[in-house]
């Protein structure tokens, strides 16, 4: 299970990117993307913005206020994308690439297959590889917790008066990165 987390400004500029693997079930927290997958990830994330906009302005699923957590919104081959949108229209995108045998990650019986909490323990359905259900409640909850933590850190970062999101300032703060990594370790 590998993840790419990206924050995009309202003008589609990437402000922050972080790549990590799962820490659950013996994962070492290192992303296992092949070179070609890594090259494609930005394209996939960028293309998901179309769907983000569609969902964002579409009929609201929650009553009253619009939800910030848009849940799983898009899929490209084996890459699943979840989104969180802030009040200032900054998009948090999380790309999830479930591990499969091709990537040669530890073939520990069963354990490696349900790599993480977000890997959908609820939806495992018996067989080891390839079954990843992005809409299972456990997955959604885990991703949500991750986003909430990151959002908290993000709000603290943009309160910095010297940081202008609107100008497309890239987040350089090591503290922020550490917080994201911690949240990832904790929930994903």
């Amino acid at each position, binding site marked *: 299970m590998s993840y790419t987390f990206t924050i*995009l400004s309202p003008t*589609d*500029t*990437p402000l922050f990117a972080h790549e990590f693997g799962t820490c659950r079930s013996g994962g070492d927290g290192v992303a296992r993307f092949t070179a070609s997958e*890594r*090259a*494609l*990830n*930005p*394209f*996939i*994330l*960028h*293309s*998901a*913005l*179309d*769907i983000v*906009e*569609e969902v964002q*302005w*579409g*009929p609201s699923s929650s009553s009253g206020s619009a939800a910030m957590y848009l849940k799983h919104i898009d899929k*490209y081959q084996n890459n699943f994308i979840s989104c969180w949108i802030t009040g200032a229209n900054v998009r948090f995108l999380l790309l999830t690439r479930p591990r499969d045998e091709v990537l040669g990650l530890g073939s520990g019986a069963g354990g490696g297959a349900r790599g993480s909490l977000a890997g959908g323990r609820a939806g495992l359905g018996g067989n080891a590889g390839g079954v990843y259900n992005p809409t299972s409640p456990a997955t959604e909850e885990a991703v949500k917790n991750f986003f909430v933590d990151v959002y908290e850190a993000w709000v603290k970062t943009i309160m910095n008066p010297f940081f202008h999101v609107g100008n497309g300032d890239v987040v350089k703060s090591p503290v922020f990165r550490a917080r994201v990594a911690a949240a990832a370790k904790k929930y994903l």
Partner: protein
Amino acid sequence: MTPLQDATPKKPPNYPANLEASMILPKQRASPASSLAGLPYRRSNPSLHKLFESTASISGSRPSSGTATPTPSVVSGSVFSPGSRQNGTGTPGSLPPGLSDEHRNLIQRAFVPHVAVLADADTEELIRGKGLEGGFLQLLRPFGESVPGKVTIRDSVGASKSYEDFGVRFVDVNEGSGAGRGAELRIDTANREGGRASSSSLRPRRTGGDVAHIEELVDRHLQYSEFNTQDMVSDYLNQGNPTAPSEGTSSPFYTLYLRRLLSGMPMVPHETFAHPVAGVIAISSRSKNPIEEFRKLYNRQHDGDLRLPQWAENDFLRYYVLIHDEENGDIAKSNQTFDAMKRHFGLHCHLLRLKSQQCIPSDDDSVRLPTCEWMSASEELAEIQKRETVDDMTDPAPYLPDSDITAIRTFVRELVAQSVIPNMERNVATWNEQVLARRRGLSGRFMSLSKRWTPFGSSRNSSSPTIGSSNSNYDSLQGFYRPDAPEAQMRKLADYCFMLRDWKLALSTYDILRTDFNNDKAWRHYAGAAEMAAMSALLSPAPLSSKTRMENIDTWIEVASYSYTDRQRSAAPYYALRTLALGLELLRLRSSSAADDAARWASRILETGLVGAIGNALFTERISACYAVRTGVGSLRMGSRRRKAALWSVMAAETWFQLDKALQAEKCLDTALRLYGVNIEHGEGGAVKLPFDQMQTFIDDLRQQILGLRLQNRGFDDAGEEGETREDGLGVEVEEATETFEKSPRGHRKSLIGAAAPLIDVGGPRSPLLERERRLGADEGKAEGFE
């Protein structure tokens, strides 16, 4: 492009102007056509070029006839897609701008009545004397493809409509009967046919339905375009006015793919499109006893060796033709015979007057026999191979005198307008009254209900393949309905309606059939009915609400593609591909909100692996086109799928690059960049960068590699060096194969052109390619400076 220009050698920098000319071409790496590519790639000769014309022209689109069949937009579920308020049901301009009706017309023209052709030995000899090896069928085939003038069809409610583009397919009587001969009455005949036939018969098959052949053919076309049309010359000329292809026109290769997918439909039990609607029986005026000859041929076809397989209706309309030899025959005698024919056979007769003399191109009023547009992939492949090996400058296509052409045109028009169509209309009316109405009525519903619910009846037994044990008409052992069973007749009725473009009746009939076939567990038939139900719903000009679309059409396409592939062991991937491809094309035309569905079906094609390498690239490109249709609303273009489209274009570019098709790859990359809003052609100063740095590097790398590939394809390495020095690390390798041309009297001509060539490609500041490369290099340098 003139043949001369086309024959310009591919930039050998120091072209040896002697007779032993050698040409350096890159060897194809793992190309799917490598089985065929044992042949040398010759520079085009004009006759070969004719074959590739369909894709060599820039735009493959034909003028759209939007007025007859408008495609209205749809009430959508999304907030961004405008509803169908602004256009009524029949406005011609309801196609979104930039969309062409091209594929819709293609689909309409693909499903046309088939007419079996049978001629006696005298006739065949007469026609061979004119230089047509294929005999009478070859003579007729091109003319059936579009019937001259308008054809008026009356539909089931009595409304008449005229169509310009109606046609029929003339098919060989042997093909149809041969396919179902012997033990091959099983359902999965269609799939194995390709392999078996290639070993058994030397003749190329007129029956299509073989995806591998289609891929191979399109690959040939692609290679031709890679090696022949990307001359410096045309590149240089195009540079002044960069053509920005609109989103509506698709690549000619994709159109070719679709066309070949739909041509030469195999004759199978579960659909009747390829079953003959009428049969032409022709004899020549040389025959001693014409009426007797007709009887003999008729008997051969009706119960003799040319009989159709058991599951096909054998009592179709017969049309009798007397061929009069203008030069050797006696017209008075022919007229007499013709009168006798009319007395015997009634109205369905024709006297066709042909000249028996062979005609050569230099004759007065000689006309080239048109090329068949709807030949099957294997046929076209065979044709290409033939012409490549012949290496002849002359065009081998036969020529006919003008009067013959006119006579044949008249004959075809009369056949279609006065016999085939009225006959089909009559059949539709009869079946509608006798079969469909009964099934639809109260008793029919009871029948189908009782069939389903009898306690001792079919449902338990139908799993065991005992024929006639249940009251179902389906012969589950052999997998067909007898042609006189109500189900088979209804299917025929629906297919006739479909071919006559009466979508409404076709849709309702297919819908009834769907449930019947489902109850009978006739999966192949079920899939066929679901497929055609979806197609007729999408083709009909009536507006579709997004709800019906979601509920019905999606399910139909889904079950059809599923039943064609997954059920039982008799998978029919060809039909599944047809379902998905047609569904995606028609959905794409529906409106912007259907574009998502279209793209979904297209990616289904990729996921299920229905296509090979070439098809993969073509359909990836198509997904991009599907997303690009959706433009969004307002000045911000909210709800568009611009970024999705761009992603798929990049994917397509990469796929093409891996297939060594530089030209296509570059085209896709340009499309992607246009969609991303980056115009690198004029991007000197304020170039818009892609949002992600990684994206920019990826695209730049890809661009460089494609340029390198183009240079290799063109076979010049020294001039390409400056572009390639960067790529050494990227592992692009050139394999070269040196091929020697045999000594030929045309060597002299070559040397003349060879001498002229270096003038064109000095490779200096005039070459747009190098210029672009340099500019790219500069951009790169700039980018690195910033970082």
